């Protein structure tokens, strides 16, 4: 049995709800989907028991009615684990993982700025990456956000202009 399969097996035996939700995407890539209430347990288990000691980054996704968060972790043998969960867009609140990774604050601030999610437990500090005078309630990575007044240079507009 490969290392990746071992990880999946260990996860599913510890958390039965991960049955079919945790899988090997390809060699050295393990992915899993969890519900928001179980997220922290699975996350802590992966960090402490499976050896995923490095937090690569946190990706935030706008999935229409929900906001998704993928926590990419890696360990020394090169296997990465992407743990994902979603929260509804009308109640965008997630918990901070600062207690597990002290370097997570910059990634969480990025989520706050760009996706407009409230991260509980994040201490006061400089915002990142938007300017200080950025208008409230504007979150650029939301799919319905468009830059105001700016010309977007996409393939279509280029063709239009050429005509």
């Amino acid at each position, binding site marked *: 049995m490969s290392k990746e399969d071992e990880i999946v097996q260990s996860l599913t035996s510890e958390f039965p709800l991960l049955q079919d939700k945790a899988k090997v*995407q*390809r060699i*050295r*890539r393990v992915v899993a989907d969890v519900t928001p209430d179980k997220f922290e347990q699975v996350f802590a288990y992966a960090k402490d028991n499976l050896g995923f*000691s*490095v*937090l*690569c*980054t946190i*990706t*935030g*996704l*706008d999935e229409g009615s929900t906001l998704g968060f*993928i926590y*990419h972790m*890696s360990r*020394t*043998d*090169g*296997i*990465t684990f*992407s743990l994902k969960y979603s929260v509804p867009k009308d109640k965008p609140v997630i918990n901070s993982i600062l207690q597990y*990774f*002290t*370097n997570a*604050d*910059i*990634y969480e601030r990025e989520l706050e700025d*760009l996706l407009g999610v409230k991260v509980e437990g994040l201490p006061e500090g*400089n*915002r*990142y*990456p*938007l*300017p200080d*005078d*950025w*208008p409230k309630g504007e979150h*650029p*990575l939301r799919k319905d*956000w468009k*830059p*105001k*007044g*700016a*010309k*977007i240079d*996409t*393939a279509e507009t280029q063709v239009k202009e050429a005509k």
Partner: protein
Amino acid sequence: MRKVVIPIGPQHPALKEPESFSVTLSGERIMAFSARLGYNHRGIEKACEERTYLQDVYLIERICGICSHTHSTCFVQAVEEIAGLQVPKRALYIRSIIGELERIHSHLLWLGVAGHEVGFDTLLMYTWRDREVVMDILAELTGNRVNYGINLIGGVKRDLEKQHITDILKSVDILEERTKYYIQVCKEESTLIQRLSGVGVLSHNDALSLGAVGPTARASDVARDTRADDPYAAYDELDFKIVTDDHNDVYGRTLVRLGELMESYRLIRTAIKNLPEGLISVKAPRKIPVGEAFSRYEAPRGEDVHYVKSNGTDKPERVKVRAPTLANVQTVAKMLEDGQLADLPIVIAAIDPCFSCTDRLISVNSSKSETLGSMKWEDLRLYGIEWHRSKGMDFSAINKKLAERL
């Protein structure tokens, strides 16, 4: 003496890019340090969602001028994985060769910058002169000195010819000899050693817990290198050593980078020796099937990660980029604890920060919306021209004359 807070940036001679740090000083001693990042946001992640995959390869390449091949390779790897493309071996080897040449150019550049930050300008002049050798080779191979544009989804754009191979080997020989000289300089020049050792100490445990990557981590004896851990391109077939050092300080980071230069020369030689024959690209579909991929790449500064999610159209659903500097910048506060003001530039420089990589996202410079109160670039340009004209500096006559001559 009472405490003073001095701003380093957004514009400061020690920073090659705009970022803002503020340092609380008591005399020459640093009491507190805080960073405000984000001055370089250009909206690239959002912009990627509005463009096709092919356009994105070029856009992503422009995240950074120094590690452009890093970002484009990392991105195309993810897209190739989603599309299930089998990239030809030869293309993978060429990617690795370009990647190593890029590492050489980046490390030589860093060495010069480090010399400059400690007031050793001669080192800057020497390394940057030698860097021209590798820049010329990159220009010969790809057509560009930076932003090489050699990656395609499914392969590379240009093949290596016989002449290229002899030229690469020739310049690698020159560079190896020069690098040996720099290693000697760094090991023997006493003022340099004094300025670098014991400065910006990051202990092994701190490096692990703060998630340091690249040479910053390896100088704290963390043997972590994506090329070895999670091989991509042709690295699984190439043999190389992970260079580590246990000095834990800026001096260690210098030695690691110099050691990596020597490894890169060796890697390039083996890659060229084993270069397989065959195609250099396969055709990629315009629309990429639904899927997601997480791609890692060992940039000169550390691990670069990209996440790409596709939705079955010709444009990605989401592109996420985490440049190595963002992981490393969080170690700087630790390194500066109880440090000297004089060491601040070199400590910041020692993680080889690349803030344009770090801040990819949003720019509203081009927006004229009143809520943001900014100006269109063109308006700003015209305003600048008008302002100078009112002060008696009018270039229109000269411009006209020059245009006539052409």
